């Protein structure tokens, strides 16, 4: 065994160029499996994170309000209060198209929305300065606002300086009571993640054309009750609208599920494509081993004449194929790990090589060495020593 290993190392070393090219196939195959699987995994966890930050326990409801049939904020709140065993938070959301002004500076892309005091917890945002909208602000319909990082910095240089200042929204003066921590650490631009402004929904309805909130976000106590929550909302809203087309309920966890299944299908498909390159590499190994056997027919004949058993010859060639693909596999793993980190960093996601991808691709390369090395080795072992000696 040890002897075959030594012979294999010697043979690989004495055919450096050829061994390298054979390994290259395995290296590329293994590396691509690792890179693809790691990147897909990294992307998946990135998506998961951003979805989780949006709240996987959230259900958003969009309503089409008609003058004859509509759900009022009071109706929605009383529904929510009846089902606190299922719902933990709720907020109306009124999107207002508005222009923010501070003196001569103005912002037009800022997303302005009216929300409840629970909104900040549902979003899991943190304030850098001041406070969020309070229940009394809602009740008193106070003209106050909480700014995102972008407008706060644009108007007042720092979020700290913004608190207590006046911002004009569509001409009305609002007092800034707080500013939210920066969310997007890479880009800060108009219309971006950090360009927003929150008002009490009671104040915002006055700025909106309809006067009635048309969207709500509910948070459930737990993701396990999502289905019950959706059912309850459907029953409740059907009672009001008597037409299921007039409202739309979307559960984040459902979206997450479909996203997950989509990503895992994609991961499987990409892994499969990379797997094919491993298979091609295996055929390459077999090809080279067959060439090696043909080329070394004479050597095999001599070894047999000197008393090498067929099994020993077989072992020698299988070992060579195995070692070639194992070395290729290890190089591929190293290369794949390095590249997946580099590419991941370039894509702005963390894509460490997954242990599964490493283990699977390494074992596949070992199996390839054995399977595709077996046939040539078998041929070598079964060569007739007389014929083998006679070849040149």
């Amino acid at each position, binding site marked *: 065994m040890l002897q075959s290993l030594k012979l294999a190392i010697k043979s690989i070393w004495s055919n450096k160029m050829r061994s390298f090219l054979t390994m290259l196939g395995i290296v590329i195959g293994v590396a691509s499996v690792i890179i693809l699987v790691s990147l897909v995994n990294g992307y998946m966890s990135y998506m998961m994170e951003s979805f989780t930050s949006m709240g996987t326990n959230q259900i958003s409801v969009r309503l089409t309000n008609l003058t004859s049939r509509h759900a009022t904020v009071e109706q929605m709140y009383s529904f929510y209060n009846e089902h606190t065993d299922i719902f933990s938070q709720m907020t109306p959301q009124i999107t207002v198209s508005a222009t923010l002004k501070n003196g001569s500076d103005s912002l037009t892309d800022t997303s302005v929305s009216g929300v409840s005091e629970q909104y900040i917890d549902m979003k899991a945002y943190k304030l850098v300065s001041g406070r969020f909208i309070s229940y009394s602000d809602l009740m008193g319909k106070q003209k106050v606002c909480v700014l995102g990082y972008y407008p706060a910095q644009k108007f007042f240089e720092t979020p700290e300086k913004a608190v207590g200042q006046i911002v004009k929204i569509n001409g009305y003066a609002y007092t800034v009571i707080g500013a939210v921590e920066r969310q997007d650490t890479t880009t800060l631009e108009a219309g971006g993640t950090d360009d927003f402004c929150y008002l009490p929904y009671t104040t915002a309805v006055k700025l909106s054309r309809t006067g009635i909130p048309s969207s709500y976000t509910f948070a459930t106590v737990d993701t396990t009750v999502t289905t019950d929550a959706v059912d309850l909302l459907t029953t409740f809203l059907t009672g009001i609208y008597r037409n299921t087309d007039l409202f739309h309920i979307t559960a984040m966890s459902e979206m997450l599920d479909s996203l997950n299944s989509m990503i895992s299908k994609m991961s499987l498909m990409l892994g499969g494509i990379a797997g094919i390159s491993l298979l091609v590499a295996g055929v390459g190994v077999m090809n080279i081993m067959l060439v090696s056997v043909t080329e070394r027919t004479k050597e095999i004949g*001599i070894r047999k004449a*000197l008393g090498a058993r*067929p099994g*020993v010859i077989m072992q020698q060639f299988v070992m060579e194929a195995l070692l070639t693909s194992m070395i290729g596999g290890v190089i591929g793993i190293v290369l794949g790990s390095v590249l997946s980190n580099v590419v991941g960093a370039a894509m702005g996601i963390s894509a460490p090589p997954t242990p599964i991808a490493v283990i699977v691709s390494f074992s596949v390369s070992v199996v390839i060495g054995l399977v595709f090395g077996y046939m040539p080795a078998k041929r070598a072992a079964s060569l007739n*020593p007389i014929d083998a000696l006679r070849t040149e």
Partner: protein
Amino acid sequence: MPVKTVKLNKGDVLIDMRDIHKTYIMGDEEVHANDGVTLQIRMGEFVSIVGKSGSGKSTLMNIIGALDVPTSGEYLLGGEDVGLMTENELADIRNRMIGFVFQQYNLLPKLDLLENVELPLLYAHMDLEERKERAMHQLERVGLASKAHNMPNQLSGGQQQRVSIARALAGNPSLLLADEPTGALDSKTSRQILNFFRKLNDEGNTIVMITHDNSIAVEARRVVRITDGKINFDGDTEKYAAVVEARH
């Protein structure tokens, strides 16, 4: 399954062939390469098997060397029936009992001289230290110890043939089987090799040498001539020389 080791002494029957036939199918034709060969060779003999190309001498050599098995007939090598052996047993008996010397030397080009000589010992599962020591001793015996770590292609033909003899002797076989050992050498080097064979024979080694050349054949002490797959002369060298002389 290791083949039992029989200690053979000078004068014991080493090769015992009875009515050996070897038949090949070539196309539709049956070729009788060996057609009833009966031959005995004892320990300590130096025999040359002489025959023209196509006479069946190579087939006979393959059978003697346990590289091939006869179609019919019985071949006992050191008392063991080669015809009944499996591939593994054939490999073992070649390793243990036969040292081959080939016309083209057949050294492995990627191994140095010492490693080449070690090969049969390697397949006999001898441990590294003993292997090196014995291989070195054989290289000394053929006068090439100083080149132990040279590669075969750095040597002349005669030197390479000496290495291959060292390799053949390394496993301390019962039989040295040489196939046209001087076929690729000039006459002066051939002479040296043949002298070396005689010296080895004097030291007690059994040698069977296959050749097509009568002048080489008469260097042995006994000559077996094969024609059309049959032995038509078997006797000592002086008698053979007389037969050859008479024909001219």
